[in-house]
């Protein structure tokens, strides 16, 4: 057996944001069929709610609004964390070892 990460990409401008924050029927069907294989997963808040932390090269960090803009970097790993608020989440992000690149901190959508 092996584990895989499935990255779901979508066009936010083309797809209407689900306002009720409920799981759609299509996802419910998917989870019924494949639930036994799922080890975790979540919907994310829109990219506009993301914050990116990058080492500034001088021992500090640059904190910017918006998602991580890839140039030559590629996705290298992930953590799901629980934090009291964005300040704590950013503090944790800064402690993740990252000699290059950066960390995008994106809120996970809370489903009702």
């Amino acid at each position, binding site marked *: 057996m092996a584990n895989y990460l499935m990255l779901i990409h979508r066009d936010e401008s083309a797809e209407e944001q689900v306002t009720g924050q409920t799981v759609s029927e299509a996802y419910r069907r998917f989870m019924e069929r494949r639930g036994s294989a799922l080890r975790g997963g979540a919907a994310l*808040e*829109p990219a*506009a*709610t*993301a*914050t990116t932390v990058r080492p500034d090269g001088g021992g500090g960090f640059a*904190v*910017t*609004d*918006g998602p991580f803009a890839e140039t030559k970097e590629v996705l290298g790993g992930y953590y799901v964390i629980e934090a*009291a*608020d*964005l*300040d704590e*989440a*950013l503090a944790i992000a800064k402690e993740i070892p990252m000699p290059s690149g950066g960390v995008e*901190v994106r*809120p996970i959508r*809370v489903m*009702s």
Partner: protein
Amino acid sequence: MATSAEVAAAVSAAHRREWAFVLAAAARLAPDLGAAEEAVQDAYASALATWGERGIPVSPGAWLTTAARRRALDLRRRAVVAERALPQLLPEPDPADDRGAVPDDRLRLIFTCCHPALAEEARVALTLRLVCGLSTADVARAFLVAEPTMAARITRAKKKVAAACIPYRVPEPDDLPERLQSVLSVVHLVYTTGHTAPDGEGLLRRSLSERALELALLLRALLPREPEVAGLLALVLLTDARRPARVDPDGVPVLLPDQDRDVWDREAIAAGLRALAAAFELGRPGRFTLMAAIAAVHDEAETWAGTDWRQIRGLYDLLLDVWPSPIVALNRAVAIGFADGPAEGLEELDRLAAEPVLAGYGYLASARADLLTRLGRPTQARAAYEEALLLTGNAAERRLLERRLAALRVVEPSAAASRSYSGSRRAQ
């Protein structure tokens, strides 16, 4: 009983004075900033509706705060009902909230609006909308964007605050210096937007400068131990003191060398110098304190010729240390041109010309033109002015450059050498 004119005047005065206070208190109880804003708007609307009948309250601010907090709680209860499945989304209000609003709530509001996880333009917009109470239409006009664009920017920022859980609080002491920089930059940006007035927006921009001064005074009162807060207040006062001399009767900007120093606001200068002294006493001078100190040297010079350029040059050396930016380096080169001589200034300027950020920057070319004029090299000066004209979009600034260029054609180099127009931008 009060007449409708009295009520309107009282509500408008309370809007101007108490908006931030009322909103900051409501934001403690409301489910999010958008709801807090709604609660405050409702409170002002209900003031308009009821003060006429019941009379204007002795303390309009307290009345509005109570009304807004009540409405905020109401909105909160509704949100809790809507999301009963997840009550932890809305933690119980702090028991301290029952004691009523404390002035420091405004500080929470400012730090939330200026959170570094928001884009700078969003921080400025949120601060003007939520802390200063400017309408979205006014914020849009001040930044020369369409109202729907500004409305979308503010909505997006509020959504991010809510969805990303940007906390409503004053940062911990460890984070305070960095977070404070973001707040001070926003206030400074509000000021400079009001200060560098493009055509046709004079009045509104003036009100932006006033808002920036109010914010700087508020921060100074709320954070009395922070040197850079005193420094920013000093910078705003010492720069704004020259406002009466900055524009001629035709609306054309007048640069520092040509300003009538008799009309400078001496009271503002005195207040600025007091704030500057406080800044130096409180700690190591930072970016805003040093910029204020440079402004103070200009304010204290009785004539342009009497400006203490050696001191200004020294202050730019320190500023470049704490704020290593190409623009500061450019202004430092201009100061060297006055303190040590045009040849030394030109040498420094040419060293900077390789800096990519400054390539295409009109002030570099105009500063060069100025130094070349003083060195008696009119042909090269003319070329530099023409380059500056190509790079400058602002109509008023173009007029000034064209005037300089025309003067170059009629004035002998030796006479031109005694005058200078580009000055040091940041210090004006």
